[in-house]
């Protein structure tokens, strides 16, 4: 009789319901696929954490969460794991927080390939390391075939906002300059192409990236920055509208200033879409007071994520909550929030 533990216990190629049942199969999946990579502190189901920044006078905790459900799970420029880390890190950093810890919770569809999970986890680890955060706690659930779309990931993030920082949408003032860090709509266009529903192919990569270093650089150069928001679902148009509403200001952007890849432009023309509403996963809009806008742009351009940073508009005194665009033709139009998702138009 030999009771020694076998070296690798997870030999299944695909996840079955057995991996969600709370027994050894689940323990083996969690250990070999998740915690061996994330290496969370301790064995408890809760992470126990301390950090000197938290106890500094005037510091605030920042806490945010997002679920990620992207299809396909892997796409040009990233995968659901990369987005899940970058997205939550970005939700922390756009508020001026330094990201410290993430939780990661996985809802896995029966039949999901274990190798896919390993790739997702590896890319989460890479992004977490880049952002300087630690994935400290997590969970996995397995649902029946057809009750999820391969895998959904929910991350929550805890960060610390140093004393004296107050980035918030309602801080935006007339005269401020709206700045984006790069081209718009890449993620939305990349996913549209990758999904294949419209049978369009294009060499477009998602912009999926963490924005922590960019924000810190911008804040150092332009400490007066009022607010930042990552322009995810609903695109830049929605981010601008939210800020205009929260600050009670009008915002006017300039169509000729909008940075767009030709392929994204082409896809929008074919499908009748407006790139202002296409999703981004590593693009933000940031508001700087007029005298610090150039410094902010210069500092952003010195970072990887900000090479194409550019001012796209200014804050005015128009009707509160109204976003308008000076069209490339010199006309003007309202850029409202969409009702639902943008649907391809034909007629």
């Amino acid at each position: 009789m030999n009771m020694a533990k076998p070296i690798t216990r997870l030999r299944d190629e695909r996840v079955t319901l057995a991996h969600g049942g709370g027994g050894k199969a689940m323990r083996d999946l969690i250990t070999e696929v998740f915690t061996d990579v994330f290496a969370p502190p301790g064995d408890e189901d809760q992470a126990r954490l301390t950090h000197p920044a938290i106890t500094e006078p005037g510091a605030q905790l920042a806490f945010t969460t997002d679920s990620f459900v992207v299809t396909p799970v892997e796409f040009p420029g990233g995968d659901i794991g990369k987005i899940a880390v970058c997205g939550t890190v970005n939700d922390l950093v756009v508020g001026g927080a330094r990201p410290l810890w993430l939780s990661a919770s996985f809802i896995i569809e029966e039949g999901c390939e274990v190798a896919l999970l390993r790739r997702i986890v590896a890319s989460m680890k890479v992004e977490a390391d880049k952002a300087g955060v630690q994935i400290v706690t997590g969970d996995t659930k397995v649902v029946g075939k057809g009750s999820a779309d391969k895998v959904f990931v929910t991350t929550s993030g805890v960060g610390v906002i140093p004393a004296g920082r107050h980035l918030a949408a309602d801080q935006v003032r007339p005269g401020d300059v709206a700045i984006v860090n790069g081209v718009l709509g890449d993620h939305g266009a990349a996913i549209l192409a990758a999904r294949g529903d419209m049978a369009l192919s294009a060499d477009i990569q998602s912009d999926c990236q963490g924005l922590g270093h960019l924000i810190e650089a911008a804040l150092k150069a332009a400490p007066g920055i009022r607010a930042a928001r990552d322009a995810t679902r609903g695109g830049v148009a929605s981010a601008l509208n939210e800020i205009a509403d929260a600050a009670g200001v009008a915002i006017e952007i300039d169509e000729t200033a909008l940075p767009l890849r030709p392929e994204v432009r082409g896809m929008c023309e074919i499908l009748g879409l407006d790139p202002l509403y296409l999703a981004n996963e590593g693009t933000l809009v940031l508001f700087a007071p007029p005298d610090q806008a150039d410094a902010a742009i210069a500092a952003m351009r010195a970072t990887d994520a900000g090479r194409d940073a550019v001012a796209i508009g200014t804050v005015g005194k128009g009707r509160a909550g109204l976003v308008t665009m000076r069209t490339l033709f010199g006309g003007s139009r309202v850029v409202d929030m969409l009702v639902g998702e943008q649907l391809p138009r034909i007629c």
Partner: protein
Amino acid sequence: MKYVEEFRDPKAAKGVLAAIAQVTNEIGATREKPVHIMEICGGHTHAIFRYGLDKLTPEGIEFIHGPGCPVCVLPMSRVDECVELAERPEVIFTTFGDAMRVPGTRKSLMQAKADGADIRMVYSPLDALELARRNPDREVVFFGLGFETTTPSTALSIQQAAAEGLTNFTVFCNHITVPPPIKALLDDPHMVLDGFVGPGHVSMVIGIHPYDFIARDYGKPIVVAGFEPLDLLQSVLMVLEQIRDGRAEVENQYARIVPDNGNPVSIAAIDEVYEARPSFEWRGLGEIDASGLRIRPKYAAFDAEEKFGIGYGGGQIRSVQEPDGCACGQVMTGRIKPVACPQFGTGCTPEMPLGALMVSSEGACAAYYQYGGARSPEPAE
């Protein structure tokens, strides 16, 4: 983008706008006594608001937004029939995205999808054809919607299905044609129209001669126009010049795309597959003679009306009551502006459209609402 960017050049616009201003002056059109130009096509309505052309052109020009949005003029009863088809368990219902949010009496296709109907948005009827090939045990129905621009694509798809012997592909035909409603509008004694901007992509299929009656019988100028802002402005200028000169002609601003006689392959395909219905209901306009197409008996196997026993009963029997207080008909005939509708912005918003014109972004009401034709960017007092 070739053939696009050149026609969006803001510098070239200065000249056209100046010429428009001058001709408007020469005509003597003013805000109080404007010249009424109808852009028939929803694509033109969209472009006007997207580029803010309404604010760049003189106040003496009043755009009347015509019935050229196939989604907006789709009768509610047909949406209900789409929902019924889509809710059949064997059916994969395929549609352009435009039609997803149009309210029927029970629900929209978007809501039917949420309730479990298998509805897929496609870019092309060819994609529906491919779905039929890949799902031999399902019935793939394509929602054939649109004017003459789109009709050839469904006609050719039906011919392709016939050539391949596909037995699970049908088209729910709601194709309509442009000339009949124009005639109906011109016959309306309440209508005030001084000229037309004609639909460029419809015309690339049918040519420009189907509009001869407008000039000949009604004495109105019409200029077939492209969709880039310079195209539109140039066409407006050409209409104004005709008015100033007392001419009534069919002119072609969009000759790079539109052959005067249209596209013979497209015309042949339409004629082979479709025939005119005696009449068809237009939302807001009512029944219009010979304004809709149906699939010829020869292709009955590809006709969802036949296969699923739906037929078309005509507005008298089938049409359902439009919602209370909806002024879509008046807006569509140019009698009132969207903002004059008592429902605009309250009972009727893009979130909860009451009338069809608020649904499609080509609908006049939606364009007004979304692009701010109705809402001043100046601070509200």
